[in-house]
């Protein structure tokens, strides 16, 4: 071991920067560092915000006057669809992902996110997927069925071109970044905190992001499943949403809104996290009701998953079900109000400063409260029926999303910009920008409530001058342009500050969270040494002045204040208590995430262009490249306890049970399980609700093939468990034999599933057959990957990366094998049970 302990801060900085920095020039494309990737997410999101904003201007220009010939209906449909799509998928979610990536390690006292390469891969998937949508728009081929893509409008009959495919494939591509970010955020918050930072000492922003990430983990899979099913229907005519063949358009609505309504809270919660972080600093006191805020975040997250049907109140659902969803929709106002009162109480009992970020926070209070109140109105079924699909709903959703997301995010921009850039503003353009945005926004959307109440429907490209909506629309359009000028001024202000601002002093707001203990702008490694945390206000812990802690850390007087063997290291802790647990080794810059995203792009583009052979190759190569990420990664010898400074020791992450990557697989399987449950739900939903059931022909599954699958799955699960037993881990031949058995088990199960799939009668005949086929394909794919992972385990074992202490690779694989066995058995239960139930 070649520990190198620096004697002074500059020497230590040079040592750390050498191993943590990214190469210049084209080397920048290999960046995986969270500060760089986080910044890229943020800047790219604002570029898409600009595009979405221009589309909004086109919409308002079109609607400013009756019978306008500015845009035809075809272009208008693409414009409003892409406006919603860009703002929701390409701006809001990536923006807070970027903010979380940038801030979380710094706030938690870590040197990077848990999986830097995954961050970079997610970023490139986001850029490529988003670009597909924008290129479609430029070519006049953009999706045009609304951002929710309702069937049958988005089905092949009514959207025969490529437009809907671009949405389905582009958005699914982008969602890879959302899911990868969700896993990464959870694991980072769980494991990569400064020692001593127990969950009750964690910054509230991390609590918000933790809950948000869990919501993403469970919220996105239903949409991914819906998108895949709709694409399969469009491409191969499997009728999931066609009522003539046992499908149901309502299945799409359920799957979409199962994602779509939590999505609103997924967007709101990070912004509320900004509120709970920035507001106490500017109010110059700690936040009131920390525990009640945590409780209300969790309550809000759960309740938000019980609201989705309030988007479907008019589709013909029994009154009792409407009452359930109406009750849940009103209930979610309570945890929101708890947070509101905590913020107001903090302001009232503090000494607030009316600085620029505070202006935007006050804007949030006004605008979001209005949106929340109209939300409660819309939760009431009779009122909802009256204003459904009118501009009242458009006004409401903009009050919620702009109030609940954009105002706090603009506050965040001004609050953390000195941290990002190391500079503070010379001018006060931001104040003018705020008033233009605030006045323009209310001018646009306050009056739009009235437009809606007067009956103007959403998504119409023009209206008659006898409708009585002319002056209301004209005022809204004028307001929108005032708002746009405000956003333009904000952009100018930010650019001026970054390029010509004054050198900012350290911790300009007097904050007490750890991100302000880094240099400004932050170095690649964040902290030269990592702090030990004993309270929620760590910057007050070192002599009472924030600079002291910062200087102590820069001098290497915390944990890991040295470079060991040229490795990038940070610390991992036990989840709840924050006790020191492990030394986590992180990867440095590499082009692999970019190349993997490019190959993933080949897969998606090939599906779009219906080059299915190329798509299959792209899929296989993507999996191969993902496995290549671990090539040469890991330890070939046991390291045991290693010094981490301050007289403490910890083992490397490869030698503990709670390693970040083990958690990542667990969380990934949760998301996977949600997708699987959505698929099974779809099948059962169609059986219970859809017309034209029972199907004309029922599957008669082969008992032999089913038995083969059952035995194979059971063998795989059993062998996987044996491969990580202490006796097997101690002896390479034994564990490799068990892994071979696991692989063979999956192989047998795969064969069984393939036989069952081939026995399904023509799946285009009925939704039952289509759903059965897809369900079998889903588990067959998992079994195939099980073979790959078992083989991968053998390769890793033979390469010397596995020992009695270093079993991480095998334990990750074992999770997959057990999970595949479980979903495979459930699938068999469904395909055998459903025909019997229906047949009786």
């Amino acid at each position, binding site marked *: 071991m070649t520990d190198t302990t620096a004697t002074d801060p500059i020497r230590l900085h040079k040592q750390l920067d050498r191993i943590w920095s990214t190469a210049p020039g084209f080397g920048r494309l290999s960046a995986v560092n969270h500060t760089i990737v986080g910044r890229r997410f943020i800047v790219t999101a604002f570029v898409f915000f600009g595009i979405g904003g221009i589309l909004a201007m086109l919409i308002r220009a079109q609607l400013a006057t009756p019978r306008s010939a500015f845009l035809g209906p075809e272009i208008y449909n693409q414009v409003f669809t892409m406006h919603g799509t860009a703002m929701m998928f390409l701006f809001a979610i990536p923006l807070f992902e970027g903010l979380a990536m940038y801030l979380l390690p710094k706030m938690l006292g870590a040197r990077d996110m848990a999986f830097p390469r995954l961050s970079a891969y997610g970023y490139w998937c986001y850029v490529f997927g988003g670009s597909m949508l924008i290129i479609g728009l430029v070519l006049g081929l953009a999706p045009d069925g609304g951002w929710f893509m309702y069937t049958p409008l988005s089905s092949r009959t009514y959207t025969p071109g490529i437009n809907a495919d671009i949405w389905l494939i582009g958005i699914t591509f982008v969602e890879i970044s959302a899911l990868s970010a969700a896993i990464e955020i959870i694991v980072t918050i769980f494991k990569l905190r400064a020692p001593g930072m127990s969950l009750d000492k964690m910054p509230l922003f991390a609590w918000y992001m933790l809950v948000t990430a869990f919501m993403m983990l469970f919220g996105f899979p239903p949409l991914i499943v819906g998108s895949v099913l709709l694409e399969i229907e469009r491409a191969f005519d499997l009728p999931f949403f066609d009522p003539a063949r046992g499908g149901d358009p309502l299945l799409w609505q359920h799957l979409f809104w199962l994602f779509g309504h939590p999505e609103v809270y997924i967007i709101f919660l990070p912004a509320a996290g900004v509120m709970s972080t920035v507001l106490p600093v500017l109010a110059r006191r700690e936040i009131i009701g920390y*525990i009640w805020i945590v409780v209300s975040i969790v309550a809000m997250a759960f309740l938000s998953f019980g609201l989705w049907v309030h988007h479907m109140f008019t589709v013909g659902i029994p009154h009792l079900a409407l009452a359930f969803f109406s009750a*849940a929709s009103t209930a979610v106002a309570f945890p929101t109000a708890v947070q509101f009162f905590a913020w107001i109480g903090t302001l009232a009992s503090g000494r607030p400063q009316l600085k620029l970020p505070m202006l935007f926070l006050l804007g949030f209070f006004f605008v979001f409260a209005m949106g929340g109140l109209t939300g409660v109105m819309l939760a009431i079924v009779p009122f909802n029926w009256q204003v459904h699909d009118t501009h009242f709903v458009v006004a409401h959703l903009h009050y919620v999303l702009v109030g609940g997301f954009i105002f706090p995010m603009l506050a965040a921009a001004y609050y953390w910009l000195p941290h990002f850039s190391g500079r503070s503003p010379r001018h006060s353009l931001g104040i003018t920008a705020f008033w233009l945005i605030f006045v323009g926004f209310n001018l646009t959307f306050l009056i739009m409530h009235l437009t809606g109440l007067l009956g103007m429907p959403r998504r119409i490209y023009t209206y008659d001058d006898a409708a009585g909506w002319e002056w209301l629309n004209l005022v809204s359009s004028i307001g929108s342009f005032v708002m746009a000028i405000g956003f333009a001024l904000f952009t100018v202000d930010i650019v001026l500050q970054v390029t010509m601002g004054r050198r900012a002093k350290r911790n300009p707001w007097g904050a007490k969270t750890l991100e302000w203990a880094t240099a400004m702008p932050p170095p690649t490694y964040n902290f030269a040494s990592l702090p030990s945390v004993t309270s929620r206000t760590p910057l007050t812990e070192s002599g009472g002045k924030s600079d002291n802690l910062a200087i102590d850390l820069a001098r290497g007087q915390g944990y890991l204040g040295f470079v060991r063997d040229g490795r990038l290291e940070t610390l991992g802790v036990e989840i709840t208590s924050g006790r020191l647990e492990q030394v986590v080794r992180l990867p440095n810059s590499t082009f692999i995430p970019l190349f993997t995203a490019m190959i993933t792009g080949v897969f998606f583009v090939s599906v779009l262009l219906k080059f299915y052979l190329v798509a299959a190759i792209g899929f296989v190569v993507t999996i191969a490249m993902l496995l290549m990420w671990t090539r040469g990664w890991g330890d070939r010898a046991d390291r045991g306890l290693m010094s981490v400074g301050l007289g403490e020791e910890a083992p490397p992450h490869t030698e503990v049970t709670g390693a970040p990557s083990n958690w990542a697989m667990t969380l990934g399987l949760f998301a996977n399980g949600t997708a699987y449950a959505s698929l099974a739900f779809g099948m059962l939903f169609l059986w219970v609700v859809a017309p034209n059931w029972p199907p004309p022909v029922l599957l008669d599954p082969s008992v032999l093939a089913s038995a083969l699958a059952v035995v194979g799955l059971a063998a795989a699960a059993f062998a996987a468990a044996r491969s990580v037993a202490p006796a097997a881990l101690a002896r390479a031949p034994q564990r490799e034999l068990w892994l071979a058995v696991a692989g063979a088990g999956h192989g047998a199960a795969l064969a069984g599933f393939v036989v069952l799939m081939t026995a399904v009668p023509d799946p285009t005949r009925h939704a039952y057959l289509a759903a059965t086929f897809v369900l079998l394909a889903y588990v067959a794919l998992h079994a195939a990957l099980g073979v790959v992972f078992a083989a991968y385990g053998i390769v890793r074992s033979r390469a010397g990366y596995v020992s009695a202490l270093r079993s991480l690779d095998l334990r990750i694989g074992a999770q997959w094998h057990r999970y595949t066995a479980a979903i495979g058995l459930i699938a068999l239960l469904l395909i055998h049970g459903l025909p019997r139930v229906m047949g009786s």
Partner: protein
Amino acid sequence: MTSLRNQAFLFMALGFTVWALAFSVLYGVQGTGCELGWHRQPVGPLSLLRWLLILIWAAHMAALGWVYWRCRAALAVTAAKAMPEAFLWRASMALSITAAVATVWIGLALLVPSICVV
């Protein structure tokens, strides 16, 4: 003591998981029951479907009661030892109460006279 440490985080989600389960099962059974005509089968003063829904609701309320008492007991132990997990148990207890209130709130819908009328 280890179990109290390990379970603390899980219990934070448990209260509302029970709520979510109640919500999903009530919605699912209501839809299935309407489809299969259980609302037309009288059992005493109420229909079979309404009895089922009330039973499901009551079972989940009982489960929430158990979650509450478990959190309360764990909080007593962890708070007495000033363990950092006490925070999580306190939050879990508050969440179990909140989830119970939310379950009562959605349960009020069971008073709607028409179960299957669209």
